């Protein structure tokens, strides 16, 4: 039974294993602490202002009093419309590039362009949106222009992440499906998409946060400092109107408005976080539902 004795080599191996384990755990903690610290700090600073009334009322007294309802609704508008444009187009483009397009220089160039676009700073998308939608297409400074600009910004990332998700479905599944007389589209719809949907949704979820948080693209194209709306209305903005947005509101509160109690920008940030969390939770719920249906 001597082969089961703890020789010095085995002891060293166990020791290394333990060190690796603690190092990895330490890294995990060091990632979690800043996140928790930021959230806790925000809530602590925001506490005096946070209330349901803060969410549901309009800002008053030059932003120094009142709530954030117009900005909250504005952000919902922008995120929803931009995703309604970017997600279907992005997914279809990725399906085409992955499942239909032949490997030639043209499609390689498109792939490269998509990846590069995904890395372009948002302020550049903002300028493009200003030129293309506000002036070029004459939509003007509006919810629609801002949403389209956000869509242009998020679409390349959605295409890239969807492509990764599609490529993760083993090629042998596609071959088996073709062997059974399924067309390309039947194979995509019945085999490829159901098995990559959670990866696709994960990519889109990340873009929800990005669209809700970016200030530059909407500042140039449709978001304004202040806009009066009827309190409590669900659809206060028309598509060709300008709107307020949480990210923009946060920016103006903290840099452009003197004499604001610091609890107000912090409470605005908390609401932005909660909005992103809740949209993400819905997406995660959809993902789990779809996954259980595949099984």
């Amino acid at each position, binding site marked *: 039974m001597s082969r089961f004795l703890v020789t010095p080599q085995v002891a060293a191996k166990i020791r290394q294993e333990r060190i690796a384990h603690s190092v990895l755990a330490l890294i995990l903690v060091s990632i979690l602490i800043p996140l928790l610290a930021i959230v806790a700090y925000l809530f602590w600073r925001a506490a005096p202002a946070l209330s349901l009334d803060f969410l549901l009322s309009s800002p008053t007294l030059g932003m120094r009093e009142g709530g954030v309802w117009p900005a909250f609704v504005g952000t919902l508008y922008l995120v929803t419309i931009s995703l309604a444009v970017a997600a279907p187009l992005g997914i279809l483009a990725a399906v085409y590039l992955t499942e239909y397009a032949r490997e030639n220089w043209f499609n390689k160039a498109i792939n490269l362009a998509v990846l590069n676009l995904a890395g372009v700073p948002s302020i550049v998308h903002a300028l493009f949106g200003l030129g293309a939608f506000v002036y070029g297409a004459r939509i003007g400074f509006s919810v629609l222009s801002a949403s389209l600009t956000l869509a242009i910004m998020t679409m390349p990332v959605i295409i890239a992440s969807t492509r990764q998700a599609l490529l993760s479905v083993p090629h042998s*599944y596609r*071959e*088996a499906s073709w*062997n*059974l*007389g399924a067309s390309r589209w039947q194979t995509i719809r019945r085999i490829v998409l159901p*098995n990559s949907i959670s990866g696709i949704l994960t990519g889109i979820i990340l873009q929800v946060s990005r669209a809700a948080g970016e200030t530059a693209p909407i500042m140039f194209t449709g978001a304004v400092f202040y806009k009066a709306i009827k309190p409590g209305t669900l659809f206060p903005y028309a598509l060709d109107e300008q709107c307020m947005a949480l990210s923009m509101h946060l920016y103006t509160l903290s840099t452009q408005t003197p004499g604001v109690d610091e609890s107000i920008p912090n409470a605005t940030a908390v609401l932005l976080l909660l909005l992103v969390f809740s949209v993400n939770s819905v997406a995660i719920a959809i993902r789990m539902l779809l996954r259980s249906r595949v099984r």
Partner: protein
Amino acid sequence: MSNRLEVHNLSLSYSGHRVLNDLSFDVRANEILAIIGPAQSGKSSLLRCLNRTIDFIPQASMSGRVLLDGTVVSGKTDLDVLRRRIGMVSPLPVGLPLSIFENVAFAPRCAGVSSRTEIAETVERCLRRAVLWDEVKDRLSLPGTQLSGGQQQRLTLARALSHNPEILCLDEFSIAIDPVTTMRIEEVLRELRPELSIILVTNLTQQARRLGDRTMFLLNGEIVELGPTDKIFSGVVQDPRTADYINGNFG
């Protein structure tokens, strides 16, 4: 006996590298044609040419004529319909990420069958044919990938039968499964012979000897010999390379 499948001057190359060189042969109705040959001799590529899954490999270029029941299928043709007429069982069982039931129902559904009873009947008939029904009838809704290797291979056989193919191709189906399952599937193939034609690609010369009505010896993309199985294995072969391969002197 009539010819179901005729192949004339079939050549195939991958980016200029020749894999199949001017093959001409036929597959008769209700026969098992065994194809033997060492690795890299082009056996699997040949099957891919028959059901045109070769089209999905961009660097492949194929020439020659393939006729199924006298109709040319090597040019532009309705490939989904063609693939339904040819069943394919791959070397490693690929259970689609669906339930056992849906694995077998997949082809009928893709072909547009929507009647529930019709699909259920097809699934039961095909699973029975593939001698898998008794093992899975109580758990048809489980994922097909949870079955054992041998069961999965029988599942892919049931799946290949679900679209009523006229020609069934098996590509080294026994490579990943146990001898008992292999024997059971061989038995199934004998039972199927009166209904369709079978092309059996195999690395096991003894399997070709057991099952093949005729045997083709493929080497480096060329047909060395094609004839009745007992003649190929009788020892009085015409080509010394065939004798060498069968006797295990190479390959």
